[in-house]
């Protein structure tokens, strides 16, 4: 029936429209991962840890690691923000949000790259347990909880024109800054380890923390942060054994 085919075509178009922002957002995240894995495989035979490679190469590797880890979380937030605007602007909102989100992280990454290149001798395994302790302590801090709360602030922005793009970029900057507040300590630990093996563990920690769970006010009962500590410890151990 003609009406049925029109209905199916309309439903298909609606489905594509529904999923397009997600395809864009997660596609960018997947692209970053592919670049990182390709670059890591080239370094695998000559990698000696932070500070032993030319600064530019080390910095690029570090930036790619940060982007790969953060991109999936940023993508999810971008899609959520875009759903609060006009449908015809959703893809643009997603892109602007991700660009804004990248800003604080690129700033953080550049600062840490510059700091590590000035360290002489380079970071040693002594720094790893220290940074692990700092990261574990930061997990349960009130400042970090506030950063976590800001992730869920209402995503309100103008619906049209340049104001829309600027507004979504602003929300992205806010989201990226909150993310830096939450994750800077564990990311420094990852910098010290400079190991792709640690990345999945850290991502799993943050994913577990953000998902809905049965633990009310975990900061009061130390349940979820305790699990985070365990993952940080296991990840550090794995990375140390890997490097050994």
């Amino acid at each position, binding site marked *: 029936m003609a*009406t049925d085919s*029109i*209905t199916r*075509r*309309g*439903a298909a*178009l*609606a489905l594509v*429209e*529904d999923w397009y922002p997600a395809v864009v957002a997660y596609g960018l995240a997947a692209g970053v991962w592919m670049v990182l894995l390709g670059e890591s495989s080239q370094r695998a035979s000559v990698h000696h840890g932070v500070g032993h490679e030319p600064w530019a190469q080390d910095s690029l590797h570090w930036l790619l690691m940060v982007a790969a880890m953060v991109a999936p979380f940023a993508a999810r937030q971008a899609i*959520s923000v875009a*759903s*609060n*605007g*006009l*449908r*015809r602007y959703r893809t643009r909102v997603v892109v602007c949000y991700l660009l804004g989100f990248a800003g604080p992280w690129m700033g953080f990454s550049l600062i840490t790259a510059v700091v590590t290149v000035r360290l002489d001798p380079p970071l040693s395994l002594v720094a790893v347990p220290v940074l692990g302790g700092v990261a574990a302590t930061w997990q349960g801090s009130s400042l970090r909880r*506030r950063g976590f*709360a*800001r992730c*869920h*602030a*209402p995503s*309100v922005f*103008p*619906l*049209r024109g340049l*104001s829309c793009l600027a507004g979504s970029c602003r929300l992205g900057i806010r989201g990226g800054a909150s993310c830096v507040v939450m994750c800077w300590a564990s990311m420094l630990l990852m910098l010290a380890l400079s190991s792709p093996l640690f990345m999945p563990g850290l991502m799993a920690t943050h994913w577990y923390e*953000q*998902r*809905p*769970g*049965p*633990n*009310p*006010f*975990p900061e*009061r009962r130390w349940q979820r942060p305790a699990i985070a500590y365990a993952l940080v410890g296991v990840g550090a151990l794995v990375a140390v054994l890997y490097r050994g």
Partner: protein
Amino acid sequence: MLEETQAETPGVRRAVSALNRSGGWPQELIDYADGIRAMKALPPSDPLSLTYQAAIHGRNGEWAREHPDWDWCQHQSWFFLPWHRMYLLQFERIIGHLIHKPEWRLPYWDYTAVDEARWVLPTEFADPAADDNALWVDGRSSAPLPPDHRDPTTALEAPVFATEGAGFNFGSGMIAAPAQFGTAGETGALEGSPHNVIHMDVGGHMSDPTAAPLDPVFWLHHANVDRLWEVWLSQGEPRTNPTDASWLDTEFRFPDPSGDHVTWRVRDVLDTAALGYVYDDVAPPLTGVEDDRRGIAATVMTRQPQEPEVVGASDGPVSLEAGSSALIRMEEPRKRRGLHAGVGAEDAEDDVFLRVEGVQGTNVGVGVYGVYVGVPDGAAATAHPELKAGLLSTFGLEASSRGDGHGITQSFKITEIARALRAEGRWDPTALRVTFETETPGRALADGAENDVTAARVSVYYA
């Protein structure tokens, strides 16, 4: 022991208006007053004292220090109803324990009934007379509740318990973890009205989330809110509780009359009979509010909502002064049911909602706003009750605005208004004016202070 006794023979929570007054005060209220008196006589540090119990909801000024038992009340999220059910249950047990009557059950204030006599505070609560009336507190309003302020019909029509993000829901929005105020969860239809509205209409302690439980009528009010949850479920499919583990398995802990604590998961408190009580009446109420369109609304709302689509919003923040308005520029929704398929829109109509987002304020001079849409230019909004979208209460607004709070976000269903305006040829699909009027005044502001309530955005969406 106490728990087993209550579970074996469920007691009945009755409407306060239906209690036996042939011999003066009903026995249930005599017992209640005795229980309140006993709670007040306990030192504030005693977990069974009224002060301590009120601090569980929110710390009031006398108790500024932190305590693991305090500041737990859940608002603006899907934990609102189950947490308050637990809170009421423990309070009921404490009263029963103190008066040595474990079979005592909390009455509910049935202001949702048609009888206008029930739209005022029960007489036992309104009389400050002699003999140390433990049920009376100063500061309450004695005025009858306006008809639409106690009307739960719109809330009872909501087809889903909770939504993620924007959405018209019964039990408030989904959030990842419990939080007191100012979360990003949507205030649900029942929490918004009549719950929040009644809090501000009664006034006094009831208008302050940190002091409200100090008013004995708070518990009867929340018993009715808890009953309305059962009324909503009694309407059958699609109205069901969430099945998400993140909701069902969330735990809350309360001090127990035994001196220890009791911990409940949400799934443990979904069957009131198992908890030891049932309500005398869970039939959907006739509310006494005239609305010829209500039958159409009931039919429409049985359909499951689809993903919301924003079609317009204010250009920026909107100051919520009495008589203030915002113009929302709208466009045709791209995902209208049947639109892409080329089917006529008359075959399948979407619901239209107004969403007031991120309402914040620290000097709150208005208790309840009336929200109107499509008021003709130059006309007073109050002269057009048929254009009233709903009520926006500022209960908990200051708490929601402090620190990292996100304020209050609430949706209003305006499908019937849009349909009526279309029928009259007055619906403009490109623009909609939203007007805010004062329904209930708020507390008196300090000298020089001005009402600073502002909405981050007012938007329109289809679902």
